[in-house]
């Protein structure tokens, strides 16, 4: 299994699409390096707008570009776009229904030891309360590329969050990427894990470890948080335990979205796995995940404990 960096996957695909469609613009906040937009900026300078370190300005400018008939992608660290410029995302983009895509990189705890200033463990919770903007957390590089091909044709505002480093490719062949349609990656009758973003790979690892213990674990890739695949959630709840796994606060994110569905339509026991209510533990992202028991091993152990096995 090869690894791909979702940032590169996104910006590489965006650059290819932008060569063909001159209305595709990239908007940066001194972030061309961290987002991997340098090639875009060099190759298509007329379709690149540098805003400096000014996220509020960048989102407003992107809204204005959209009003002028363009398809802007505002690109920068997820943590800043979803709080520093949260009001611009709410008012200028979502409420005003301007076709702006917010591409947040280095999401979750992928900035590792840079600490809580740079972590975005709040973004899904915040954006889920703002109507009018789609939310995507792709799970690998190939799905990210497929998502870009959808986004450049879509007229809907959207937020897309990826991590920072190379992550394993999950979709080797076909890449199903339909908004509002979760991908079932593994069958299993004993427990269902619904995961999003780069935690999907950890969910698959957990399922492998559970299989060794005789526990059959289904895994769902819920890369599309809005629109949400309610049918998949209800199907997942055929198992006696539903586990959500996300690189996000345990409050307000995927776990909350799934529990909102199940508590009202099909109550089943749940575990919401994510980052606890505290300033994040320090370390490389893999170390942080291990610390909180959110890697494959840790998730498997939590599930076995819950199942008393």
């Amino acid at each position, binding site marked *: 299994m090869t690894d791909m960096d979702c940032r590169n996957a996104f910006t590489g695909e965006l650059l290819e699409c932008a060569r063909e469609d001159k209305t595709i613009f990239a908007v940066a906040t001194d972030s061309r390096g961290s987002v991997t937009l340098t090639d875009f900026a060099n190759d298509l300078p007329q379709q690149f707008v540098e*805003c*400096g370190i000014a996220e*509020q*300005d960048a989102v*407003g*400018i992107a809204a204005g*570009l959209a009003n002028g*008939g363009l398809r*802007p992608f505002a690109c920068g660290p997820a943590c800043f776009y979803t709080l520093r410029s949260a009001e611009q995302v709410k008012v200028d983009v979502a409420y*005003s229904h301007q076709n702006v895509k917010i591409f947040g990189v280095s999401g979750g705890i992928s900035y590792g030891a840079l600490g809580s200033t740079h972590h975005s463990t709040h973004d899904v919770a915040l954006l889920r309360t703002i109507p009018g903007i789609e939310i995507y957390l792709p799970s690998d590089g190939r799905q990210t590329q497929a998502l870009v091909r959808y986004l450049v044709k879509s007229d809907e505002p959207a937020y897309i969050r990826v991590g920072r480093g190379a992550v394993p490719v999950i979709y080797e062949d076909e890449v199903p990427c339909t908004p509002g349609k979760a991908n079932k990656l593994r069958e299993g009758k004993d427990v269902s894990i619904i995961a999003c973003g780069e935690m999907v790979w950890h969910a698959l690892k957990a399922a492998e470890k559970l299989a060794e213990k005789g526990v059959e674990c289904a895994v769902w890739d819920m890369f599309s948080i809005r629109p949400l695949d309610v049918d998949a959630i209800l199907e997942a709840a055929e198992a006696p335990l539903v586990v959500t796994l996300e690189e996000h606060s345990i409050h307000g994110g995927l776990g909350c979205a799934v529990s909102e569905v199940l508590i009202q339509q099909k109550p089943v026991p749940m575990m919401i796995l994510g980052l606890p209510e505290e300033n994040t533990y320090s370390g490389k992202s893999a170390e942080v995940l291990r610390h909180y028991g959110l890697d494959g091993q840790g998730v498997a152990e939590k599930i076995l404990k819950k199942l008393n096995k």
Partner: protein
Amino acid sequence: MNTNELVRLAQMRRADAVTMIHDAKTGHTGGAMSCLDVLTCLYYDVMKVNPTDPRMPDRDRFVLSKGHSVEGYLAILADLGFIQKEELRDFSREGSRLIGHPNVKTPGVEVCSGALGHGLPIGVGMAIAAKRTGQSYRTYVVMGDGEQAEGSVWEAAMAGAQYGLDNLWAIIDRNGLQISGTTEQVMGLEDFAAKWRAFGWEVTELDGNDMAALQDYFHNTPNNGKPHCLIAKTVKGKGLPFAEGRKEWHHKVPNDEQLQQAYEALGVKGVDWRD
């Protein structure tokens, strides 16, 4: 357009706005009145807009960043035919699309506004889009002077200069008053023109309630490759004797007697859309 006719139109739109506020028992009287000459000049004499095709691609762009001054704006959109004049009766009523801040449900409104400090960044984006795609439209953003305390205004000021946006006008309704007092008491702006010049803008100061001066400015704005800043010195509550220059009229609502005083001062008998 003839200056006297523009002055008459501005007075009629003031009558519309003060009636809307009176009837709805809510609104921002002072700011709606102060910027109405600027809005009238832009919409009736300067901007290229099309009420029958509000999304016409090369329309001039307008953003009322001080969105609370919505009443006069809606009155103009109604008079020009973007919406039916009778709809002004619904202002701030339950279920109405004509609410206390501009929103995109209203034909002719480009973006939702009212959260201050948002308009100029959007205007910068509009102006960049025109430059990059060879479109000839111009972009006009009207801001409040109290709004100038928002940091995002100055982020956009930097960007406007960086990109040489001579197709962009930032117009500040410099009425000198905000909800808590004078701008200088709350968060001083002066030397205000110097600040904008230092940020790289071509700056003009004039009487923002002088229609002839506004016409002359907008039709003959000097162009030296910089974005344009107009500091329009206005009177809060302009045209309403009981409200002029009084901060409490930021969002005070006129009573029946004051509405009649307003009509008299504005030289109108009333409005033609009211029940």
